[in-house]
């Protein structure tokens, strides 16, 4: 009820999920801190040619570099913009510096500030207080970073405004068909980003029976009743990773520097790997068999715990 018709089926393919829940002009969050970054969703958004998106994410990473280069975005809200361990995000820089393919507005925080914006959004508070930014130039270039006086101590604390995306897309290891979603390994801000949003798409490596979720309820991070769509997309986070499923494709992160260095090269890559495939399944087939040999996770199973009473 809170979010959606409870009896409407939520399991759908990526095309339908993006078609129904991601609209031109939306504020969109695809989170995942290194872990569980949903490239499959970004590629479908590019294929469906969404426009004028405000993209928010701690680390724009390759995923927003691609969305920006494909002309989907008009604004970027971020806290660290680089290709981790490699260098610049060339697509983003071309948009900012050369307005190519179109201008890109920037709104910049530190990680803590953007995490706090999402926490405020999830808690439906208009702001979040944090002890930060004194002595830094960040508030001078971002007027949304303000201050507040503590009613107890009189201290000045920084504040950031709530971020409430129109839609958040979360990648996860598994969910049931109602969207009850379990994550292990790095959590990032997946939970806060989901609760902050009006619409939530969960993309998982596996859809599992409800009984699997119920057998280990402490692993559930997002309850199904706030989820609008559940998409099963194995390897949907590649070249990011999913703990227990596949490793990060670091070679691709390194290669992206060369691919994206000029606009033509990046466009050719989009033509081949995004527009040139109809779905994540085709993308995976195109990666070839060696990707599973190279990146599939080795087993390191945990033990169960007792939920009895």
């Amino acid at each position, binding site marked *: *009820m*809170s*979010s959606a*018709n*409870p*009896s409407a089926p939520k399991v759908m393919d990526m095309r339908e999920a993006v078609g129904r829940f991601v609209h031109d002009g939306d504020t969109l969050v695809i989170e995942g801190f290194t872990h569980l970054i949903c490239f499959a969703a970004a590629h479908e958004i590019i294929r469906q040619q969404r426009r004028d998106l405000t993209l928010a994410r701690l680390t724009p990473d390759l995923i927003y570099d691609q969305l920006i280069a494909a002309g989907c975005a008009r604004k970027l809200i971020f806290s660290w913009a680089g290709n981790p361990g490699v260098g610049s995000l060339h697509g983003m820089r071309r948009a900012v510096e050369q307005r190519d393919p179109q201008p890109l507005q920037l709104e910049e925080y530190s990680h803590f500030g953007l995490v706090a914006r999402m926490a405020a959004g*999830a*808690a*439906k*508070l208009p702001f979040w207080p944090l002890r930060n930014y004194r002595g830094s130039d960040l508030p001078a270039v971002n007027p949304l970073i303000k201050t507040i006086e503590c009613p107890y101590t009189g201290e000045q604390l920084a504040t950031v405004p709530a971020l409430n995306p129109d839609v958040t897309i979360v990648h996860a290891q598994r969910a049931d068909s109602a969207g*009850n979603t379990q994550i292990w390994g790095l959590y990032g801000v997946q*939970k*806060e980003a989901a*609760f902050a949003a009006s619409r939530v798409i969960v993309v998982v490596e596996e859809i599992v029976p*409800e009984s699997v*979720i*119920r*057998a280990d*309820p*402490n692993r*559930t*991070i997002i*309850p*199904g*009743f*706030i989820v609008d769509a559940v998409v099963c997309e194995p390897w949907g986070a590649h070249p990011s990773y999913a703990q227990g499923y596949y490793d990060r494709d670091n070679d691709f992160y390194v290669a992206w520097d060369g691919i994206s260095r000029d606009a033509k090269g990046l466009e050719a890559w989009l033509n081949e790997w995004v527009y040139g495939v109809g779905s994540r399944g085709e993308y995976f087939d195109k990666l070839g068999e060696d990707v599973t040999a190279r990146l599939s996770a080795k087993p390191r199973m945990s033990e169960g715990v007792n*939920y*009895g*009473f």
Partner: protein
Amino acid sequence: MAVRAAHELADGDVVFVGIGLPNLACNLARATHAPNLVLIYESGAVGAVPERLPVSIGDPALVTDSLGVASMADIFQFYLQGGRIDVGFLGGAQVDRYANINSTVIGPYAKPKVRLPGSGGACEIAIHAARVIVVAPLSARSFPADVDFYTSPGQAGKYGTRAQLQLPGGGPTRIVTDVGILEPAADGELALVAVYPGVDVAQIKTKVGWALRVSATLEPVPPPTAEELTLLRDVLDPQHLYL
């Protein structure tokens, strides 16, 4: 009352459940017309399917086979304040003319005649849940014109109306008693909207501490079905802890 309260729930509702009668009502609704009800307890259990009647709001049976467990910080911030709760259940020692609820003290706060347990989660449930169902047997002592202490805000009162206070949730929208159902009118004052079979309206009026308005068209109230009674007595509360 458990059957009446169950009828107040719609399939798919996300319900903040209290212990006792509300818990029975929710499990009755889930077993009959509302299989997709999501039961959330302030203790952190989400999508609970207790295989025994929970004796506390943090019973281990609420966790086993639940859909999820949340910290209480998340429950209050992301679930409740986050506007994700459709229905909250509240009880209280006193409910007044505008559905303000007192579960703190009878008498003055500093020198109470009776010290009650206090708010728990009641204050924030009354503020944030989209609608609140109050379950309380009707008596003049329990339904005064004004409560001694505003633990949980109703529809209006000395601090103003909900609109003036900009409270995000709907507040108490249905008061389910042992003899009938009250509902706030447009001005926030409770009016009698349903009377159970065999109960006299005149008698109900004597059990309320103000001149009770009676709706022009009383809702029909079907008697509990045999299935409902069997479920309650034999399956949901076989030890008759709450019935």
